């Protein structure tokens, strides 16, 4: 469908508002992007160079910031001495595993909730999302106790399970919305053509592809950026990037160089993921086959 023209006519007020929004956006960009830039550049700096700070009011001193000899020693340190490749693998497995389980279980649950009517369906839906209403901290103590009894503390399966508990409700809710938009007729046609209901369900998955993409991203982001679960449930055997980075802050010695490098290592994969999946999310699938 072609997008429509947004008809707008210039008025003094709207022009002023346009300027205001431009200035606001510029400030906002500086506010959000500058820390990332500082992190990125500092990770390539020797400690001494990283702390070269011009005196207050000396704006020309900004160039000092870019005046350094790049070094990879912090990255070397992370991966050679500090065992970060292991932590990165842990993070990947925990995030990916939880995302995979959430998508598989979530899509099946969402399909059922979208297609089948039964008593108390709205209550069930509300209950599912209500499990996300309490803050993580509030459930952490009982959860820890349960996980300890099951000997899941400090293991990757434990961490995956913990993330899935929190990702699944979101996955179900988001995917149900997508399934609701798929006309029944497509899967009915499949079933008349000779498919079982499960085959029919599989056949409409491509139509909820954008939803699955969104769920994967959200689940991975939640798990990847999580600190609390990783620190408590994963402590010991299943250390993730966020926990490992936190441990670089030691009472005697804050290792700024490795911290910056760890920040880059943690952020970069998520940015790449965003780039890769964005095209897919935006492109979506037009439902040309069904007359609206």
């Amino acid at each position: 469908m072609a997008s429509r023209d947004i008809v707008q006519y210039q008025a003094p007020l709207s022009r002023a508002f346009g300027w205001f929004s431009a200035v606001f956006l510029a400030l906002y960009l500086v506010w959000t992007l500058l820390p990332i830039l500082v992190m990125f550049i500092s990770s390539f700096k020797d400690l001494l160079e990283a702390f070269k700070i011009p005196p207050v009011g000396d704006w020309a001193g900004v160039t000092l910031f870019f005046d350094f000899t790049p070094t990879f020693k912090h990255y070397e340190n992370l991966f050679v001495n500090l065992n970060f490749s292991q932590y990165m693998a842990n993070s990947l497995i925990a995030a990916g595993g939880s995302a995979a389980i959430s998508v598989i279980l979530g899509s099946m649950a969402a399909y059922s909730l979208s297609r089948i009517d039964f008593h108390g369906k709205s209550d069930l839906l509300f209950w599912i999302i209500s499990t996300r209403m309490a803050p993580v901290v509030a459930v952490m103590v009982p959860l820890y106790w349960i996980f300890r009894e099951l000997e899941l503390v400090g293991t990757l399966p434990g961490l995956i399970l913990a993330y899935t508990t929190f990702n699944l409700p979101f996955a179900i809710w988001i995917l149900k919305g997508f399934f609701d938009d798929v006309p029944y007729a497509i899967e009915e046609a499949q079933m008349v053509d000779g498919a079982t209901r499960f085959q029919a369900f599989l056949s409409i998955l491509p139509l909820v592809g954008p939803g699955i993409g969104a769920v994967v991203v959200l689940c991975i982001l939640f798990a990847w950026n999580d600190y609390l679960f990783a620190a408590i449930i994963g402590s010991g055997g299943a250390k993730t990037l966020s926990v490992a980075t936190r441990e670089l802050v030691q009472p005697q010695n804050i290792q700024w160089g490795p911290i910056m490098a760890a920040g880059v290592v943690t952020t970069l994969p998520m940015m790449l993921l965003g780039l890769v999946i964005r095209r897919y999310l935006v492109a979506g699938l037009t439902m040309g086959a069904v007359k609206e």
Partner: protein
Amino acid sequence: MVTVSIEKVWKIYGRIPAVKDLNIECANGSFLSILGPSGCGKSSTMRMIAGLEHISAGEIRFDGRRINDLAPKDRDVAMVFENYALYPHKSVYENMANPLKLRGQAEVRIRERVLAAAKLLEIAELLDRRPQELSGGQKQRVAIGRAIVREPKLFLFDEPIAHLDAKLRAHMRGEIRHLQRTLGTTVIYVTHDQLEAMSMADRIAVMHEGVLQQLATPREVYNKPVNAWVAGFVGEPAMNFLDCTLEETGGQVRFVHPTFRIAVTPEQARLLEASNRAQGIRLGVRPDALTISLAKSKEESMTGRIFVNELLGGDMIVDVDLGPERVRVKTSTDFAGNEGDVCYITANRDKWHAFSKETGRTIF
């Protein structure tokens, strides 16, 4: 090819019955149309035949074999949906190949069948396209193609051409009819468009509020409607209804209406006599069974005033006010009456109908 028997079938949603005690027999190789307005239960009936909905009570049989509990895939039917229901992410070829693939046919045979069907439907050059690149008529052909590749026992059409424009619809009517004749497969065709049902079906099942009204040939449904509702639903422009009383003077029975008194034939008088006359009579007469004239004729006629003329190319429809009621008359385009003119209408007494005012049942 299969004989479909629907026996005492009910469909109940919650507490609301959508189909009530339905009995239909559809002969092997015939074209049955289920006709009715929206909400009459025709789609529920079709979906029960396809296996997409449970049958609340009663039985549906294919060649005498009860199919109530068979999954859709085991019924060997093919269905064409109102909104086509093509798989948007698959090409035309893949869409048409799908039913064969699901049944595990060999790739060579699939190719052969799809190409043959595509050729029959004249969509061979579209096989690589995706559904969103097709026009409405082309999508419809693909949907029909998907249904015929498998050579099923029974075709189910659920208002397949309702969304096409008028010209294409007329074209597709002929094509579907021809296709059915060529393949010889039993067809059940659901529609709300009486013209589609009249022009294509061997037999029409007219449904209203979940109840089968009449099951007969198109000719019979049109000429001998079983009640006033069927008479009013079938035919375009619709039949005119006028509430009348009866009067007998000098051995002659007449319909009496504030604007006319017209005698019935002796045969009709006998039928009226046999019915319970106290109930009052509803006279029904189709626009093409009326003749309009500006000059008073010798025959007994209705006197009215022209409300409006509608020119329909080949002929003309004249709306005439008869007192508080309005009738539509079909006439030729050279009729010279203008709006507001007094006119006289005579009826073809062989083609008019009388219905009981209370039950709506046909008297003749």
